[in-house]
């Protein structure tokens, strides 16, 4: 009885989480008015929507833009966060907790609150309508949490390990890159992936700081898709585009799956 209830609950949860994605796939395979027929699998599935997505706008370009921005953001955020977290986690200095708290509070502002200020900043730096501008602004929200998470992990690493390295003649840079970095692998994978997803899905900044189609990132490109007339929303194509851009994320999660799980639990259990 208990097991049956559990199985039912599980099924409900799976249904609840998977259904929207399933529906997107189904819709993306339908064309024209078939979209409005409720059926488990389209009667005659077609890839027309997928072709249309890439024909209607420079969608390939958008994907490339998103890829560049997101990986750039991940790379720079992790590099800065690893060095920052060494200082914050391992070096005792005055004002350390104040600094940590202010880093955390920065990430609490809603995006809209900083939008106009950032707009001025981006314009002043001459980065309007450029991928650099996007990358820079994304770090506003990726850096605080990467720094926080990595600082927590850094603190967990045993002090004697660092001291052994010091006795061996390692400089702080060597300690970070050759001792700590390899041990932080899971944490890096987890935080890097989260940063990647956030940057990949970001909409508001991408909409505000870019102007031309060839600088659009994927979420904006999808939102701005238009059908044959201004009054028709091309649902089929929107769904097809969404499926296309979600697949890389799922692939990434699957690739890093094991590392992420160990990364998320490593701090909890002493190994």
């Amino acid at each position, binding site marked *: 009885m208990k097991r049956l209830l559990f199985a039912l609950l599980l099924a409900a949860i799976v249904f609840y989480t998977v259904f929207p994605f399933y529906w997107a796939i189904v819709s993306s395979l339908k064309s024209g008015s078939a979209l409005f027929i409720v059926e488990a699998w389209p009667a005659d599935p077609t890839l027309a929507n997928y072709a249309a997505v890439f024909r209607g706008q420079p969608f390939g370009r958008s994907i490339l833009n998103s890829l560049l921005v997101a990986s750039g953001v991940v790379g720079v955020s992790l590099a800065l966060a690893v060095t920052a977290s060494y200082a914050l986690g391992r070096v005792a200095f005055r004002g350390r907790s104040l600094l940590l708290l202010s880093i955390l509070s920065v990430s609490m502002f809603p995006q809209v609150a900083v939008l106009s200020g950032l707009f001025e900043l981006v314009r002043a730096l001459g980065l309007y309508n450029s991928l650099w501008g996007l990358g820079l602004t994304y770090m506003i929200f990726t850096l605080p949490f990467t720094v926080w998470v990595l600082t927590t992990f850094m603190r967990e690493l045993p002090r004697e390990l660092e*001291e052994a390295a010091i006795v061996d003649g390692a400089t702080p840079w060597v300690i970070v890159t050759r001792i700590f970095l390899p*041990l932080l692998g899971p944490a890096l994978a987890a935080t890097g992936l989260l940063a990647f997803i956030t940057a990949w899905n970001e909409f508001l900044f991408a909409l505000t700081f870019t102007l031309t189609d060839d600088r659009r990132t994927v979420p904006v490109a999808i939102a701005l898709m238009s059908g044959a007339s201004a009054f028709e929303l091309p649902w089929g194509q929107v769904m097809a585009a969404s499926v296309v851009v979600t697949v890389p994320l799922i692939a990434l999660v699957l690739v890093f799956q094991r590392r992420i799980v160990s990364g998320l639990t490593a701090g909890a259990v002493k190994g």
Partner: protein
Amino acid sequence: MAAVELRGVRKAFGRTAVIHGIDLEIRDNEFMVFVGPSGCGKSTLLRLIAGLEDADGGDILIGGAEVNDVPPAGRGIAMVFQSYALYPHMSVYENMAFGLTLARTARHTVEDRVRAAARTLRIEDLLHRKPRELSGGQRQRVAIGRAIVREPRVFLFDEPLSNLDAALRVAMRIEIAELRRQIGATMVYVTHDQVEAMTLADRIAVLNAGRLEQVGTPMDLYHHPANTFVAGFLGSPRMNLLAATVTDVNGAAVTAALPGGGRVRIPVIADGVSAGDGVTLGVRPQHTVPAGDADAVLPGTVFVVERLGAETFCHVRLADGQAVVTQAAGDVRVAAGDPLAVGIAADTAHLFTGDGRALPRHRRHPLAEPPAPVTPAAAAPPPSR
């Protein structure tokens, strides 16, 4: 190989002083052991020598040169940590080679030294393994190997065996003693295991609350403890310390009245005590004798008998409530509730003043060598012509 010298070294963490001005000379090639109760500052003192902590006062000299501002890697030391602190993502070989590689040592030199150390420690077959694939004893060997390859002038060990089980600890202790003969270097070794301290040390430094209580050879400390702290700290079971009163003092001995009415003449130098002073009588459980051979007896009643097989410890309650432990043969016929007179031999008993200072004996124990002369260089200025 180098002497280590501490001159008035002080250390405080925040406002709590942990090391209160320690003067100590560790000779070239000497095996020095730091012992003391938990929290007395042994590790801190070792880390000060290593350079992992900065002293707040005083000087630290290694090989005659002041190293106060020299970073750990430049001090010519190697340290073996209690938790081994092996780099988890590196193989045994890489762990041992890491320091040398950082120092840009030639590849073949690194290889030679790592292999030589591995051979000494019998871990040649493990060189390609990761630390997590090793047993505790093997990890400890790797940690020692990592220290050896650096060819340090001074080895520092912080309770290296305390994470091992009892049997392995005995085996590793013997290996360390053997290793010590092979590589010959100055070694400083922190432990709270008395057996390790007694068996490995050339000299032992007993620390208490950040101060040095006594420094000397193991037998020196055992037979001539300088005060009640050292007397109680070394030796197991601990020395019996009983309140007594001085009744007579002359040039050859001090006579004390014991609880229970007995008197004993102990051949020590009076050194300031006079008749009527309260003193502490110290008798090790191993040094009690049958009542018939004794210079004095402490009558009492046995209240606990602990049989260890080879020996028996009898806990005896004296009439005035003080408890005394005495060691007897393994097959001694005794039971709780029996009356027992604990015999004291004057030449193995100790007397301490009221504030815990030992009264010096007239004759030193033959095994307790007089403190060897300090190294000639430091002792006296060279004779002038």
